[in-house]
């Protein structure tokens, strides 16, 4: 049993990978509550897929992936914003076209004969490939993202509860949503190193689904999301180590298993509709 637990901690590579998934969980777990509350699963997926060209270019240039991810997210977000301005097309369609195009461009760049064979890593992630410098950058971004979530906590709560009412309180719901999207873009840039362009969505959506509606405040929902994301990340890495599976995919699978378990538990424990309350 002791060997089972300490085995992954014996190598520096695995220790860095563990730290990486803990950092991801601490930022993305709480964030997933807001992704769910603001119904941002589709934009999250779009950002994660749209940044692939940035990742590939960073890989080709030998630059840190996080730099490429940040640049890729920024370009994808601007392209989506411009395309969405044409109301005849509709924002969903415009986003789908831009993201598919970006993803195709990323694939084209990555599959050139002279490109290093890293497409698999960029798509599915590799926590084991994280360097100490990557980890430091991810830590700094996770800290900044966490601080932003703390500062935005009350406006996010007010807008998610009642956007019209929040506007009357003096808040600008559009700006609050934009600030949340910026935090989301930061989280995607951090998480894509470990989970890749295709699997990063798991850590942004699954923790909130696992927590469900069993909590009574946004703060508790965020804390529970962090616990689920960190726990599932560690379980995923351990299972990868002991079963020999791909690390990024194992973490994503553990997150999705937690979400499925949480949803199933919610169905089992959901009480019958309460009787109407007396006034």
């Amino acid at each position, binding site marked *: 049993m002791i060997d089972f637990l300490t085995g992954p901690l014996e190598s520096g590579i695995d220790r860095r990978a563990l730290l990486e998934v803990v950092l991801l969980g601490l930022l993305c777990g709480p964030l997933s509550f807001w992704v769910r509350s603001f119904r941002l699963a589709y934009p999250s997926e779009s950002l994660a897929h749209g940044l692939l060209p940035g990742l590939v270019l960073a890989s080709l240039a030998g630059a840190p992936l996080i730099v490429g991810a940040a640049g890729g997210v920024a370009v994808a977000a601007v392209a989506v914003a411009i395309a969405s301005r044409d109301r005849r097309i509709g924002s969903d369609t415009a986003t789908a076209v831009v993201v598919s195009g970006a993803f195709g461009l990323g694939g084209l760049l990555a599959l050139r004969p002279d490109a290093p064979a890293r497409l698999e890593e960029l798509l599915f992630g590799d926590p084991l490939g994280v360097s100490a410098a990557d980890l430091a950058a991810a830590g700094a971004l996770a800290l900044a993202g966490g601080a932003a979530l703390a500062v935005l906590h009350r406006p996010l709560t*007010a807008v998610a509860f009642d956007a019209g009412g929040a506007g009357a*309180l003096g808040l600008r719901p559009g700006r609050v949503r934009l600030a949340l999207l910026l935090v989301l873009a930061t989280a995607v840039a951090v998480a894509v190193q470990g989970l890749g362009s295709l699997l990063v969505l798991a850590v942004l959506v699954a923790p909130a689904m696992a927590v469900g509606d069993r*909590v009574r405040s946004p703060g508790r929902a965020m804390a529970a999301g962090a616990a689920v994301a960190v726990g599932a990340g560690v379980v995923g890495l351990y299972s990868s180590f002991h079963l020999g599976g791909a690390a990024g995919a194992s973490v994503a699978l553990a997150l999705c298993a937690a979400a499925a378990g949480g949803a199933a538990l919610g169905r089992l424990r959901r009480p019958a509709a309460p009787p109407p*309350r007396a006034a």
Partner: protein
Amino acid sequence: MSAALAVEGLSAGYGGDPVLTGVSFAAEAGSTVCVLGPNGGGKTTLFRALLGQLPHTEGDIRLQGHPAHVAQAAHARLDFPVSALDVALMGSLAGRWWLPARRSDRERARAAVERVGLAGLEHTPYGALSGGQRQRVLIARALVQDAQVLLLDEPLAGVDPASAETITALFADLRAEGRTLLVSSHDVEGARAFDSVLCLNRGQVAFGPPAEVLDARVLEATYGHELIVIPAGEGGRPVRAVAVQHHEH
């Protein structure tokens, strides 16, 4: 008494042609104004202009401070994990949204929840409250804002009798404190209890004391075919009218 709210020649809209034109009225501190009009008649547009959420293309608005707004409870999410106290506490957001709530903010929120008759239900999830209780929580949120002018969007619509009684008594208290209440409503008969009535139908039809304003001509100009007017009876009985409401499904 001084005017807490004065509107002069207001036109407002959503970017295209104005949807509300020629609105001029004033309300003194400690007075109540009932805003009548059909759906789409401009009641919400007027409130949004008063809140500063819509640029007004013409006219002038003078207000004592920033008004508080109480929307209909149906607009808030029932599945979001906040308690009655959490919602009331949102009223303390203005000006310091980036900081955690202070102890004094929590005390004000708790007092507001008690004032709307929900003591003991502070920690009840908002979605588990009845419709009338939810409306009272939103009023508590406005009370925490401590605004001189309150804009209330059909606060008694679909509310149970006990909550309606509490809300009506609270309005009397707020009026006695010198606060000004603008209440949008479809209840033409209920409008007679207000100090003034403002009738809107994409523009101002009439403004003044209910006894002067609520006659058949004004009501028909305000509601058109959406109103059943019962003519004045013998013995000075005033004209009666019932607005026909259309609900979206």
